[in-house]
């Protein structure tokens, strides 16, 4: 039933590819989990001090989100409503632990620098939000795409923040010196305060651009 309805909706919108493109646009821009939905603030502020950490965190979340969305979507008709949150948490925790072990085995440096924030992905609200609001209501492929799109959106905003914070705060990019003695790194940017400031300015910039876009549409 659900799939049939969705198929008709898809046809109306103009095909599978277009829906997928829309999903990616949602994840990366319109519904960006960090800058628009304001989900997952803890890792956003804590891991964006270096570009390497931000990329590692973003990609770990993307992997977990994609897998958990796919599995939860596959099981959405089998999981009784009363225990759905418990089931989601168990599934998510399983994938997070797997990612944690894999990182510790194959990328020990990243695992050491991200430390406690990898296990904390379990309670990252982006993952539970997508499981509850998307994966539990949509077919598996759509949900997996949603996971990739939302994960990429998270990675993009984290990377954008970390580039600003690392370059201005430490004068480096991915560990390489980029200040060239032209400016003195401002340590405030790698402090928590700098994280909040950067996040605030990024959200403001995004809102400005988005409002301009909607005004254009109104004018038309």
């Amino acid at each position, binding site marked *: 039933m659900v799939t049939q309805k969705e198929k008709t909706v898809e046809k109306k919108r103009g095909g599978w590819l277009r829906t997928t493109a829309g999903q990616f646009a949602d994840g990366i821009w319109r519904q960006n989990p960090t800058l628009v939905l304001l989900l997952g603030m803890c890792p956003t502020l804590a891991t964006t001090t270096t570009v390497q950490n931000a990329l590692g965190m973003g990609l770990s979340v993307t992997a977990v989100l994609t897998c958990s969305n796919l599995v939860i979507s596959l099981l959405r008709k089998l999981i009784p409503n009363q225990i759905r949150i418990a089931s989601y948490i168990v599934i998510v925790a*399983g994938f997070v632990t797997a990612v944690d072990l894999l990182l510790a085995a194959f990328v020990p440096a990243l695992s050491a620098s991200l430390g406690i924030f990898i296990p904390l992905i379990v309670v990252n609200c982006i993952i539970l939000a997508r499981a509850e609001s998307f994966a539990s209501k949509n077919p598996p492929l759509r949900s997996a795409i949603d996971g990739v799109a939302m994960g990429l959106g998270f990675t993009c905003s984290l990377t954008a923040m970390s580039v600003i914070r690392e370059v201005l705060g430490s004068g480096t990019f991915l560990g390489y010196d980029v200040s060239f003695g032209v400016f003195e790194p401002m340590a405030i940017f790698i402090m928590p305060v700098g994280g909040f400031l950067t996040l605030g300015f990024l959200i403001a910039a995004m809102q400005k651009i988005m409002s301009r876009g909607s005004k254009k549409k109104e004018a038309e």
Partner: protein
Amino acid sequence: MTDEIKRIDEKPKKGRTVLSDTAATTAAPTAAPEKPDTKAGADNRTKPGSKNGTTGKAKPVSKAKPRGGSGGGAKTEKTEKTEKTAKSAKAAETAKSEKVANAANPKMQEMRKTVLRLAGTLFVITSAVALMLGGVNALTEKRIEQNAEERRIAAMAEVLPGYEAAGESWSDGVSTVTQMTLPEDGSVAWCVSLVSAGFGGDIEMSVAVEQVEGVLVVKKVAIVSHAETMGDPTSEEFLGQYAGHPAGITLGSGENSIDAMTGATVSSEAITLGVNTALEAVQEALALGAFGDNGGSEVQG
């Protein structure tokens, strides 16, 4: 079950409100001082909109019957009438409650079924996740151990820079002792790797031990990994204190003591215990001649 209880609870309430009505009109003088009635009156006021169905009306009056009697033959035609309706309503009510009781059994069964279904589903999901994690663990376990070994070697290099490992390590199950030599002047030192139980988890540490005037003393202490939440167990200010101390280090005052980290007594104790254990391990290894003649004879002599 809960549904049934609720229903039974509700009925007397409804009843009371009606009771106060009849009591007020018929046996007002006797009924008024009685506490339940005044309460009922309050109920009535607070719940003006409560519907008094036939079942509701009947029950309370049946309760009121003895009261009416105590009232001293104040029975009027009205009460008789209500009594009659009470009887029939009471019968209807008992029938109803029986129905409820009968209905409870299938309900219970149904509940048991849903609980079993929920528990079963959750069990299957958790088992599947556990199975997957077992697989991942089997895949990564060796690599993770290898990484830990590399970290240990790096920590060795940190506490004894420039030294090179000489031969095999010796282990007593708790501490792993490696004899190291400095190529330049051939001086000997020992690096001990061990894990001590701290406040927030295991503290993995490396202790460099050297021999000064025939006594084994600490050369340097380094923390490889820890999960302590208070103080900074990796700070040189704290770890630096250990240098030059022989076995039997205590915290606080005394000849062979160091200062604990403020607010992190458990961590300080754990690290001190680790350092003492390391010194004893080197002593034992040398006494057993684990590294050949030169080390052992030096200590004993």
